[in-house]
């Protein structure tokens, strides 16, 4: 749903005050970057002013603040609000100072929340598309990724049109990773029955090695509750996939996240010092899962559901040739495929030998 937009494309904004949570420079950058999200896909140009009334007045406040007809509610709950284009409060965006504003994934990322509120300031209502920036609930997405979904773009372009000098006049779509990009690295890789799933940021590729078919999807298309930038994933012996990010993990069966997840990785038997998992693979022949963290690995018995004693061990001791941190690993037809940076190694767990080094994107028919 969109409301009448601004009748001009040159808009001004003013940062009225600052949050003590972040440096002024970080706040300035977050606000500027958040406005750029919208100017990238529309003819809009945003200019900062330091005095007087701007079209978009940006301020931090708590509970009842100034003459604003809405109030904030302390930590969590409502994070910010904004008003549609117009005079007075029109176009203004307010941020709840009782929240923890940050530039990263901790607390609430000011850039992401500001980009959402500026969508309202330009005339957009909330979207019920969970992948959209204009979805009402906060969801962290790596700021390096383009946060607008096709839904956001079509909404704002229905008000202002597209960016006049966009090269091919098509509505700008979120940049999705290029499959054969030589710089492409993967966050995690897992099998799922006969297919292999490669994860990167918000996207995943489904590869069918038998007929070399490749499909690119958004992770949220299958599992809306999963975060982006998953760090490790593996298929266990019960037709389930486990996804890891930070100290949390989710168990997925089909399309469902099993109830009670995410759980803390300490419930698997990791010591408190382990903060995240780099990669994991379940050896279907032994029913044992290897978790790789830095230059070490732990072994988990899927049958007894417990971590084996005598771990961690150094990875290179049991996987000769695999010297570096493991970015991702999966098993296919008995062999393990280890990924680090731009390299991939095919490893035979029976003879404990690296068979060959292959190009990282060998699975994609590049």
């Amino acid at each position: 749903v969109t409301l009448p937009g601004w009748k001009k494309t040159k808009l001004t904004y003013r940062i009225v005050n600052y949050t003590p949570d972040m440096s002024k420079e970080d706040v300035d950058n977050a606000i500027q970057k958040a406005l750029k999200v919208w100017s990238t896909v529309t003819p809009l140009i945003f200019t900062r002013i330091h005095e007087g009334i701007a079209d978009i007045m940006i301020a931090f406040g708590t509970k009842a603040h100034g003459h604003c007809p809405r109030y904030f509610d302390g930590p969590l709950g409502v994070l910010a609000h904004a008003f549609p284009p117009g005079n007075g409060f029109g176009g203004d965006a307010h941020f709840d100072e009782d929240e923890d504003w940050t530039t990263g994934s901790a607390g609430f990322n000011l850039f992401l929340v500001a980009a959402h509120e500026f969508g309202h300031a330009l005339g957009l209502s909330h979207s019920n598309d969970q992948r959209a920036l204009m979805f009402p609930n906060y969801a962290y997405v790596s700021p390096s990724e383009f946060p607008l979904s096709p839904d956001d773009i079509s909404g704002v372009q229905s008000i202002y049109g597209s960016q006049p000098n966009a090269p091919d006049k098509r509505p700008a779509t979120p940049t999705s990773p290029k499959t054969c990009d030589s710089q492409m690295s993967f966050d995690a890789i897992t099998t799922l029955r006969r297919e292999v799933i490669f994860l990167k940021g918000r996207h995943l590729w489904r590869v069918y090695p038998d007929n070399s078919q490749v499909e690119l999807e958004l992770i949220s298309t299958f599992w809306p509750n999963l975060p982006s930038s998953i760090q490790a994933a593996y298929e266990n012996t019960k037709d389930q996939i486990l996804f890891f990010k930070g100290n949390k993990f989710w168990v997925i069966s089909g399309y469902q996240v099993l109830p009670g997840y995410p759980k803390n990785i300490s419930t698997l038997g990791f010591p408190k010092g382990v903060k995240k998992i780099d990669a994991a693979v379940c050896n279907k022949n032994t029913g044992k899962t290897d978790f790789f963290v830095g230059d070490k690995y732990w072994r988990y018995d899927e049958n007894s559901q417990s971590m084996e004693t005598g771990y961690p061990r150094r990875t290179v001791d049991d996987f000769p040739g695999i010297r570096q941190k493991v970015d991702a690993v999966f098993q296919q037809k008995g062999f393990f495929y280890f990924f680090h940076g731009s390299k991939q190694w095919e490893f035979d767990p029976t003879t404990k030998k690296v068979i060959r080094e292959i190009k990282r994107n060998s699975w994609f028919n590049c």
Partner: protein
Amino acid sequence: LPVHPENYNNEEDEKLVEDYLNKFYAVEPDPNQLGWKINAESTAEKLQKMQKFFGLKVTGKPDSETLEMMKKPRCGVPDVGLYG
């Protein structure tokens, strides 16, 4: 469908639901309206609207999934109506 108090686990949940629906699913009064609006939406109807918006099971009742969604940090702009 009227929502019966026994569907709330506790007063806190009841207040959460009322606040949430009033804040984000109250249809703003029509400026051209001349008299009282006789058929204000019931809590159950607003709940159904919220559940439909978030893709939850539309029950009109404050089940645990709905309460969970209501507890997530979010934007203060209403999800319905003209948010001006």
